């Protein structure tokens, strides 16, 4: 009996592993291998079998790992400006997304009447709008002498357009990232029981006390997921800064695409990509940890 039990369990393990092999294989082939290759290529270790690499412009080719590519890139004031712009746009977007989404999630969860219902269907809209369209819609609306300018002009207010500036990128990122953030924070808030809040009210806790002492501490993991996921998303974005962002300095996403496709400098592009990986490493680890943790509660795994 015990022997057949063990055989059964071994068969189950083998079958289980075989069934998950395909998507895990795709992750290895399309994420792990490219990431490692990008790192070694950016360190000057150029694969000889690749004509495109070895004919790229400004190629650093070395037998041992060298940081020459990074040194050259970071020596450029343009790249340093791009890096700085990328980091602060990302941080600002993340903070704004978190604040706006928290207000919306709280309102949908604890508000009463018809208005929260309207908000509930409103905030999902950007989820179904492709990012290219979102960016283009933002341009047509916010551009200098555009619709918003006309509306403000009609009531006699001055207007400074955020289009083709860093602020345009931030506004569009907030627009685009609201649905995921509210969904995520909302799913955390749903787990907080009404009785808990009511009993806090009964002992005299006001709105702010309840928020600060009960709601926020119980919703830390979803908040971490929102912060990290949004940060990684904004850092690695291309479409929004490409269409509505400034030309110089520009965000890393735009620079990477230009180095890769337009300047024929795949090594520099890959080195910039590895720098993005490094910037997002901590956020990535926290994101994976927090998502895994929150999933433990949601799904019986």
């Amino acid at each position: 009996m015990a022997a057949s039990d063990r055989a059964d369990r071994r068969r189950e393990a083998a079958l289980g592993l075989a069934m998950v092999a395909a998507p895990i294989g795709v992750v290895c082939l399309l994420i792990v291998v490219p990431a490692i290759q990008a790192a070694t290529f950016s360190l000057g270790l150029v694969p000889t079998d690749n004509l495109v690499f070895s004919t790229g412009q400004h190629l650093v080719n070395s037998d041992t790992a060298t940081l020459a590519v990074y040194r050259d890139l970071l020596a450029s004031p343009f790249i340093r400006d791009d890096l700085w712009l990328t980091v602060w746009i990302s941080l600002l977007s993340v903070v704004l997304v978190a604040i706006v989404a928290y207000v919306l999630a709280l309102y949908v969860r604890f508000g009463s009447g018809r208005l929260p219902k309207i908000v509930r269907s409103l905030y999902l809209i950007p989820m179904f709008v492709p990012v290219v369209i979102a960016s283009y819609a933002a341009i047509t609306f916010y551009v200098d002498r555009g619709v918003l300018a006309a509306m403000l002009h009609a009531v006699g207010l001055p207007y400074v357009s955020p289009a083709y500036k860093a602020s345009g990128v931030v506004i569009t990122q907030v627009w685009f990232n609201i649905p995921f953030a509210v969904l995520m924070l909302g799913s955390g808030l749903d787990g907080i029981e009404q009785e808990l809040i009511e009993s806090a009210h009964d002992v005299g806790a006001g709105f702010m006390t309840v928020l600060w002492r009960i709601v926020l501490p119980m919703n830390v993991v979803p908040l971490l997921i929102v912060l990290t996921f949004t940060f990684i998303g904004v850092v690695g974005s291309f479409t929004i800064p490409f269409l509505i962002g400034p030309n110089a300095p520009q965000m890393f996403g735009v620079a990477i695409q230009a180095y890769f496709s337009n300047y024929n400098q795949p090594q520099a592009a890959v080195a910039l990509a590895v720098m993005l990986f490094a910037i997002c490493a901590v956020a990535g680890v926290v994101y994976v940890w927090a998502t895994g943790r929150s999933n433990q509660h949601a799904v019986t795994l």
Partner: protein
Amino acid sequence: MRTTWFWDVPEFRRGLGLILVFGLSSFLLLPLLTLLLWAFADEWRYPNIIPQSASLKWWEWVFTNGDVGSAVRYSFITAPVVTLIAAVICLPAAYSFSRFRFPGRRALFISLLAANAFPKIGLYVAIATLFYRLNLMGTYWGVVLIQLVGTLVAMVWIPAAGFDSVARELEDAARDAGAGPLRVFWSITLPLAMPAIVVAAFLAFLAAFDESQGTLIVGSPQIVTMPTLMYTLVVNYPEPVGAIFSILLSAPSVILLLIARRYLLAGYLAAGFKGR
């Protein structure tokens, strides 16, 4: 009196709610409305809040343009195939994660999140350098693979949650009544997990159909899908062209949304990790 007494005044909170709803709807909807108006505008100059004259002439231009036709074709031969491949490789994995015990199960499940933990543009460039070596740049399968990256998490995680939610008692009861394992799966487990699978397929299709950044890097100039053509249209043509094309590009999302509506409300969206 506490300094935050005003929070507990009903009128204050209702007024705040109104401002919130008004601000949110303006912020979210006005840019989209602007685009919608542009699609039917002929002339729209500052400081007019609405177009001066309407016209459908650009619709004809868009519908007879060869690039647009080719992009529509490429979009519809990539995204459905990506969704199908994602379903074929991910649904068995989702079932396995939900039902079988095997070593490294949780770690492997979590490792799928790697697709979201890397900044997208960096990942795409890294993949593209690999694709050069594999001669996949500018090819159909290169585009299919790059779009596949963004579908994995949704296509495993959401159906796995769906399989988890199927009550084991029902399966046991069917088995007691004499149903074989396959019969139990087809008649009990699969139908009950279907809402989750539909939501996952819906999100996977949208992720593939709307994917623009990776497709631009790996596919162009040979393979130009609708979202990647949008980059060119937006830069090189007057506003109505981009606006009309935006409507065409959002049509599948809206149609699918209406079809899958009752499933989407079932609460699986919260798990919808969009890979962008």
